[in-house]
């Protein structure tokens, strides 16, 4: 989608995303402390949309899971998962996953735009 002279644009988007992801993770951690499932779900949805748009599918997948767990569903959102503690635990795992994926993306992107 990028023209040669428009790498700046995609760069701004990507870095915008990276920054946004950092903030979202911070918020997620706070919500984990509060055990606020609804907040976690909406944060998951939020980050899911942007990561999906940029094609960071690993991050997106984890965010989707977080969204579902937050709704007290299983990871595909198809069946209910009434156990809140279990949901929280699963969300914790997914957040960790998402952060790992994010770190990969982060370094790759910074590398890419540094070269370009």
């Amino acid at each position, binding site marked *: *989608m990028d*023209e040669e*002279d*428009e790498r700046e*644009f995609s760069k*701004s*988007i990507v870095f*915008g*995303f990276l920054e*946004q992801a950092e903030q979202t993770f911070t918020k997620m951690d706070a919500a984990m402390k509060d055990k606020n499932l609804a907040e976690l779900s*909406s944060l998951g*949805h*939020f980050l*899911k*949309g*942007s*990561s*999906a*748009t*940029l*094609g960071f599918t690993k991050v*997106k997948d984890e965010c989707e899971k977080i969204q579902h767990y937050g709704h007290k569903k299983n990871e595909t959102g198809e069946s209910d998962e009434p156990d809140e503690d279990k949901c929280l635990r699963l969300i914790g795992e997914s957040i960790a996953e998402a952060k790992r994926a994010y770190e990969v993306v982060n370094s790759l992107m910074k590398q890419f735009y540094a070269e370009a």
Partner: protein
Amino acid sequence: MLEDPSYSSVVRWGDDGESFVVLENEKFTKSILPKHFKHSNFASFVRQLNKYDFHKVRQNNEEGGSSIYGANAWEFRHPEFKANSKDSLDNIRRKAPAPRKPSNLSDDQISIQQIDLMNQQIVAQAQQIESLVQTTGQLQMNHQMVVQELLRLQKTVVNHDRVMQDVMTFLQSVDAKQRRDSKSLFAPQADGPATSTTLTPTSQNMPGSEEDVPASPLQHAAKLLNEIKPDGQFNMAGLEQMNMHTTTTPVSQDPRNAQFRGSNSATSSGSMGFVKMNPNDMDAIVYPMGSTNGIDPMYSEHINNIPYPMPSRDTQDPRAQFADTRKKSGLPDPGWRRPPRILLVEDDPTCRQIGGKFLYSFSCVVDCALDGLEAVSKMQEGIKYDMILMDIIMPNLDGVSACHIIRQFDRTPIVAMTSNIRSDDIQMYFHHGMDDVLPKPFTRKSLLDMLEKHLMHLKKMPQGMDGQQPTSGAMGASGGPSSSGQSVRDDMSAGTSPAGSSGAWNSPSQYSGVSPVNPNMHFPGIPQQQLQQQQFVDMTGNTFQTGPQTPMGMRQGVMQQQAQRRGQAEMGGGNDMGGANKRQRIYAPQQSMAAPMR
């Protein structure tokens, strides 16, 4: 009677004066009773006596058994009934004398009365109930009929809408294709001065003739569609309102509607809320400009419903400008006849940026709303868009609700942008008035496809534009004049009909809106500008060319227009066969004509 001596052998006072004696039953009955009691029934006479508490004096308590008055004699006695004491007669009452019996009697009578009363009441109530039942039944029937009628209407309207849109889309695609074909055939001739001069008169005559003969089948259809549309919309609105009343909070909606109407008429003077727009008005507005421009503006017109320059342009301009200043080189230009205005409703900055970026690259003018609430208020301000891209899950007001509200007063295509694309989700989106779903994450192509699908009416043939590229340098010269020409046209058209100004509404929004801020824009002749120029010409070609006061500086521009309009001009020439109202046929000869010239 008892004292009458002539009766004494039949009936007389008893010996002691405390009773009376009927001596001869038969005679008494036959001769005396009729005279005094209007009947001749001894038994009833006795009954009457009993009622007044006379008692028959028993005879057999005496020794010897036989009565002193004879065997057949009936002796009656009453405590108050005495010879020579008429005063005591007053004490002889029907009910009073016997305490037990009279009370019984009165009880009976009371209860009888009560029963009567109750019977009457019951009967009355029964009647009432019956009538109520009847009424209820009737109401139920009526209600069912109405509901069925409503459902039927709704279905009909929806089907109509769909059919109409399908038909229009199809026709437009056919039309666009044909025009593109013809244009591509004619484009190369732009360089030949001879052809262009010969064509000049035609192209100038053309708009007039076309104005006289406006109804190509497509235009006709669009006109019909326009006439139908307001009604359909009204029905839909009504039904939705009904739905709303049953399902969601009606209070919040109605004021919005009202507010929309109010603000609309307030902000853009002379514009009418489309709600009030009747088919005739619609017709009057759309017709004149449609006659020269072909079908597409009309179509966009009726989609947008408010054919006036929108007051809120200022909010759009910076972004529009931004879009224009972006370099488009190397990007395949989708070729709009004017830049589509897109409202991007998205809370996520990344999606918004990407989406906006894509849209810019498609030469769209993008306006953004951060949530459903902002989108709704933008719509209520009366800003017109060609399409709305709507995220679903957003803070404040989600996309579905926003769509639902917007649908109360506007038919702009709304495309849901979401990753929730389960079939029941999608069902729900459509149910609330969304026109399509763009699954997230979307690609550049899927977005472009979506645009082209819903903005078919804005498509322009790219070949014609390419043909003009060489002369783009001259555009700088024509840039200034053309805006003056535009003002000329504005003056002219504003005087004549609102439709004229609706034609103008496209150009000022991008044109005069942009040029003051960024005057250089005109000179590079970047494709975007080309596009606008083209669009300007197309939209306004009529007044432009018929206006005799066109400055000479515009010559270049006019030439270009001629080149560009040649397709239409030829069409107009070919159309001399008499406004046969068959555009398809018009094209055929044109193309055959064009081939040899090439």
